[in-house]
């Protein structure tokens, strides 16, 4: 770890490298990292019992934060966090299908994000304030990205001091 930190400060662009917080099982595969908007939390995928499972950690302390509602819904994929990490969007397995869900860590609520029939979600990106979500969908063999409004479903997860702005859609 010390070697990594020493190497870090010397990059040509002034890059500083930080070690990722260790997973609970030491050296293991870690995939699909997602930072909270404030950079405090890191979600990533690790193997648990042979199934891909989301691991949510405090980036500095490495403390693992519990996600009890997501147990028994592996494999997980495509995690995405809001500003403080209150909301975690991800894909879980629901029978034969991948289901997009949103975990509200403040209330413990697990909210299914119901998509129009025939569209399989592949990747998610949750806006930091939780007002919108972008979903990569597989529709009739074609990959495309669609945006959805969450402003009626969630309380916003705003950065401290950020002023309120309208949700939904604004077009010229």
């Amino acid at each position, binding site marked *: 770890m010390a070697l990594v930190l020493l190497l870090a400060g010397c990059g040509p662009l002034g890059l500083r490298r930080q*070690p*990722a917080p260790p997973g609970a099982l030491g050296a293991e595969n870690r995939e699909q*990292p997602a930072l909270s908007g404030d950079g405090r939390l890191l979600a990533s995928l690790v193997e648990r019992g042979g199934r891909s499972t989301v691991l949510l950690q405090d980036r500095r302390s490495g403390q693992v934060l519990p996600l009890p509602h997501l147990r028994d819904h592996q494999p997980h994929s495509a995690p995405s966090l809001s500003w403080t990490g209150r909301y975690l969007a991800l894909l879980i397995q629901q029978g034969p299908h991948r289901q997009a869900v949103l975990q509200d860590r403040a209330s413990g609520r697990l909210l299914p994000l119901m998509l129009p029939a025939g569209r399989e979600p592949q*990747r998610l*990106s949750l*806006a930091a304030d939780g007002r*919108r979500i972008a979903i990569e969908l597989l529709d009739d063999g074609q990959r495309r*990205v669609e945006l959805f409004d969450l402003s009626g479903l969630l309380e916003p997860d705003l950065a401290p001091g950020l002023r309120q702005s309208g949700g939904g*859609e*604004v077009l010229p």
Partner: protein
Amino acid sequence: MSIARGMVLQRRRGAALLLAVLSPTLLLTGCLGDQLRPLPGLNQRLSQLGNGHDPALSGRWLALIAGQQGRQQVQLIDLERGLPVPLIGLNRPDSQPLSVAVDLSGERLVVVRQREDRTELVLHRRTLMATERLPIEPAGVPRQISLSADGRLLAVEVSRGGIWQVDLLELP
């Protein structure tokens, strides 16, 4: 008396008829309430870009990889105006973007792209129109990325010796 009873019966029939007409509507409303609300105007604009994948949503910005097969490019959409903004110097004819992340101001984009026979990680500063490579040390192959809202912290999924790891980089 019989006239009054007839009026009551007529009112009851009318109420039953109204309920019968409205019931399917009420049921349908309930179903739609559970489904995500798409943003049709923005989604129409996105579909005009061709196939899209790997969305990254940050504030008013949506970065994604989109285009016709074989000519995929990084696109940055200003969601408030519903229009793509130019990314001068980022997209190159000899490179294929694989994933993208954007900060809250829409100023910094980080891209993983395939160029010739290597996969590289680059940082693009939009208003400076400058793109620079971010070295990966120890050497590895980057894949998925996530950027904090302020654009200062980057999480990168890197393959090293057959193991997927997560690197954290503080950007200057």
